[in-house]
């Protein structure tokens, strides 16, 4: 066992000398890729419920790299909603990537060619954005590609296997796994809600209004996807009006 790890270490040491920045990207990308695999695996269950097969789930993940966005998209597919609704839904669920990409664009050196911008833009996720922005100086495309090399397969293959596992595993386990994705959503929203009372208020209001919308007359007749869209826009607009974020506060978040 130790001989194998020694060999792996040697291999990486060799690579590190030749392509240091790229390897730093791989190093930082490995834990992210593993985490993605687990999240994507449970996302595969959602894809399967929406009626997608393993290849379609794989394709969606390969091209989207977004947990909340894909979950929202799969809801639209499951409900067989009109195509325009998919576009609006994704626009809202992934709106935060717009912000991240804008922020990241500030960190490119002006000499970075357009194709690097396109390939990096393809995989601007919360985590990759986080590790990239944490580095000093201009964005180094090689570092990003190293991290992508771990993140993209972790995510897409995770979804692929999740769909397959959903078909094979017994009902009881599939049912239990169904809440995994929600568990991860909870783990994303609760820690900042603990630190920041406005986010806490936003989360509580979201829970209450989302529940109310699911039982109230007229509104509850709308599809789940439509309700998510409307509530997100309305509540975020309200939050932005009543609790605008200061420049400083926003900078701390990043």
């Amino acid at each position: 066992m130790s001989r194998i790890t020694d060999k792996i270490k040697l291999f990486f040491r060799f690579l590190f000398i030749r392509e240091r920045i790229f390897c730093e990207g791989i190093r930082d990308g490995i834990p992210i890729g593993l985490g993605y695999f687990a999240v994507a695996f449970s996302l595969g269950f959602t894809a399967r419920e929406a009626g997608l097969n393993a290849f379609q789930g794989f394709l969606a993940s390969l091209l989207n790299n977004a947990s909340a966005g894909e979950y929202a998209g799969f809801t639209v597919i499951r409900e067989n909603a009109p195509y325009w609704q998919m576009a609006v839904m994704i626009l809202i669920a992934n709106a935060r990537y717009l912000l991240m990409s804008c922020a990241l664009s500030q960190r490119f050196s002006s000499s970075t060619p357009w194709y690097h911008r396109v390939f990096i833009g393809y995989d601007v996720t919360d985590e990759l954005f986080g590790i990239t922005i944490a580095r000093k100086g201009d964005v180094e495309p090689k570092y990003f590609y190293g991290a992508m090399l771990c993140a993209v397969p972790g995510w897409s293959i995770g979804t692929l296997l999740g769909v397959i596992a959903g078909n094979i595993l017994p009902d009881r386990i599939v049912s239990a796994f169904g809440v995994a994705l929600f568990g991860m959503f909870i783990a994303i929203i609760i820690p900042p809600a603990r630190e920041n009372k406005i986010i806490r208020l936003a989360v509580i209001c979201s829970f209450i209004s989302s529940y109310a919308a699911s039982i109230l007359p007229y509104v509850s007749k709308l599809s789940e996807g439509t309700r998510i869209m409307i509530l997100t826009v309305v509540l975020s607009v309200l939050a932005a009006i009543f609790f605008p974020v200061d420049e400083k506060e926003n900078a701390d978040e990043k």
Partner: protein
Amino acid sequence: MKNNPYIYIAIMSAVTLAIRILPLTLIRKQIKNRFIRSFLYYVPYITLSVMTFPAIIHTTKSPWVGSAALVLGIIGAWFKAGLFPVAILCCITVFILEFFI
């Protein structure tokens, strides 16, 4: 009639890619507008909250099981259990409780 899943995937991918790539290639200045910045700041928390509840109580066979998973998940996350442990905690809760119903 069922819509074509490939068209759905094409639309979702096109929008996602546009959202990420266009700012990197076109916008070279930071967004100054305070309202838009605030809006984009709150969107992730609100959309994730709205998607989680009440959907989590409808995925399980009994809404009580889903509620228990939600509550335990929130407690775990409150004490900073991390992404993966919270997810596992929710799964195990459902797995165990569904033996009793």
